[in-house]
């Protein structure tokens, strides 16, 4: 009996959660899928080749803008290549130097906003998710649904009060102010992700801890948090991408000294003569962090994506 329970527990530890159950969620990589893939591509060999060909063409098409960014960025200091699909004759990194000069300050701002905002909203979300999944109280589901609305509102509908509120606290225009705002509006989504994640961890663990005399807090810090790593990775990636890519809050709630990278990049268009090579190099710099996160941790990225949808 105990062996079986231990197996369940360790399964949760590697991240089997509600989100990953094939029925409901991401389900990338359950063994079943491989079988069904074989079944469909089996009928005729040329059919399989046709599918492959279509996929290759579609993928190449999807990558055209990515190629355009890189080719243009490498085209050097002054002018872009005349034809937008031509690769520059003499690729150079000059444009990156210029873009870095214009953007490095705001890239650091973005970093200063993103890291604490993502970390704190994840911590709060994990605590909430734990409570909602392991200690549901009367009305907790309804309250959770009310909380979730905050995930979907257009932020324009609250931006004036937020602006005035930060003004009242003398935080308007500062990095701290926009960080706090990101934390607060991040709570619904992180709570959702962690709630789904913790539902995959057997309640028996919590009950056992309770019998051993651990209260809500102690169970959280000593039992749940050590099992939470995969949940934190998913939620953190989701929050890091969202906050890094934000534009609205960044533009309205910060002064030029605290502008995040997206705002500074957008302002590079505003100048009368646009240096396209530099603009594209800037786009590469702004996109790089989230793209790298996606390329290296794609699995978790997708899981966050599917966790972000209410079922």
């Amino acid at each position, binding site marked *: 009996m105990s062996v079986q329970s231990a197996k369940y527990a360790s399964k949760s530890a590697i991240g089997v959660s509600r989100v990953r159950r094939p029925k409901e969620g991401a389900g990338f990589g359950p063994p079943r899928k491989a079988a069904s893939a074989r079944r*469909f591509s089996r009928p005729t060999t040329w059919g399989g080749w046709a599918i492959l060909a279509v996929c290759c063409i579609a993928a190449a098409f999807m990558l055209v803008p990515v190629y355009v960014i890189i080719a243009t960025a490498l085209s050097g200091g002054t002018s872009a290549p005349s034809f937008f699909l031509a690769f520059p004759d003499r690729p150079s990194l000059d444009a990156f130097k210029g873009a870095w000069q214009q953007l490095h300050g705001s890239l650091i701002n973005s970093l200063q906003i993103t890291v604490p905002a993502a970390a704190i909203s994840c911590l709060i979300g994990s605590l909430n998710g734990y409570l909602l999944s392991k200690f549901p109280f009367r009305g907790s589901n309804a309250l959770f649904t009310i909380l979730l609305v905050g995930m979907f509102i257009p932020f324009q509908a609250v931006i004036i009060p937020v602006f005035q509120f930060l003004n009242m606290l003398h935080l308007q225009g500062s990095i701290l102010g926009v960080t706090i705002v990101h934390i607060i509006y991040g709570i619904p989504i992180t709570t959702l992700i962690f709630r789904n994640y913790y539902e995959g961890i057997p309640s028996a663990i919590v009950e056992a801890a309770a019998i051993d005399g651990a209260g809500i807090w102690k169970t959280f810090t000593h039992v749940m948090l050590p099992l939470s790593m995969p949940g934190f990775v998913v939620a953190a990636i989701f929050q890091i991408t969202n906050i890094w890519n934000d534009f609205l809050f960044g533009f309205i709630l910060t002064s030029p000294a605290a502008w995040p990278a997206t705002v500074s990049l957008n302002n590079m268009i505003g100048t009368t003569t646009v240096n396209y090579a530099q603009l594209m190099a800037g786009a590469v710099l702004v996109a790089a962090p989230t793209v790298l996160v996606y390329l290296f941790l794609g699995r978790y*990225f997708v899981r966050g994506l599917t966790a972000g949808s209410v079922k």
Partner: protein
Amino acid sequence: MTAPVIDRAWLRRRPAATIPHGVKTSRRARLIFAPSLLVSFLFVYVFIGITGYISLSNWKVGTSPDLSLRQPFGATYGEIVGEQRFQADYRNVIIFTAVFLVLAIVGGLVAALFIHHVAIGKSLFRTVFLLPYALSFIVTGVVWRWIFAPSTGINVFLKAIGIQNPPGWTTDPSIVGAVNSIDIGSPLKIQLGIPVALLPIIFAAAWQLVGFAMAMYLAGLASIPEEHLEAASVDGANAWQRLRHIVLPQLWPSTITCFVLLLHVALKIFDLVVAMSGSGPGFVTDVPGIYIYNYLTSRYDKASAMALILLGLTLLVVVPYLIRGYRRERKA
């Protein structure tokens, strides 16, 4: 990170009442959850209420609010609804949403079906399709703006293959299918139809989000029980029949999710348009998000009224979806 071992046999021997999930615990859980709920309540519901009040007030701009109610009641709404820009915004956002949803959802479904059945390189294709989703709308906008710029990008190519007057893309003020000849009456100040300039933006948005739909559909495809497909094959169903009668019906939940989440993205669309074209000539690419953003420096009341209309539209879609999720949870 070793998981605690639980002797469940021992656990079962105890009467359920001693497992401390009682009144005290639940009060404590409520207490810990309360701050998040209160903060969200303030920042979402109270702030929306304040925005609503501002939309009814005389507060134009600045830090010293003029909170007297505007007379007659709700006059700001009347004022903006009659504007050419307001009407253009909602024409644009409706067309944007409709075309974008079709492109992204159908595109995502087709991509998922192909990628699900491709023999090799599955994860590579998945990665490529979802890559744009990792980008900021501003980055996407900057890139597509250049590709669709009238004198660079794609038009250089079109000129090279002999097209003398390539399209102006986002700078084109024309409206396809515009009702010109008929006098539609004085309250309507715009031409109904499809603004040409909106199409490149829709295209860019679909490029960015088609991977999201694909990911949802791939998750749905992976959850279809293998036995169903096998049984159908044994019964002699061909690939098309299996797709039509087994796969597509089971993908319905993924479609609903995509529909709601993408619709909500489309209604809120803002950064992408800012980076690609702004308002455009004659507001052909203006959207409510940009309207609000522009009036944040001059007319709080107008910006608030517009924001509330936009919020209403969004909630019209999202609230039924959230309630559906809540009901399902209760049943489960």
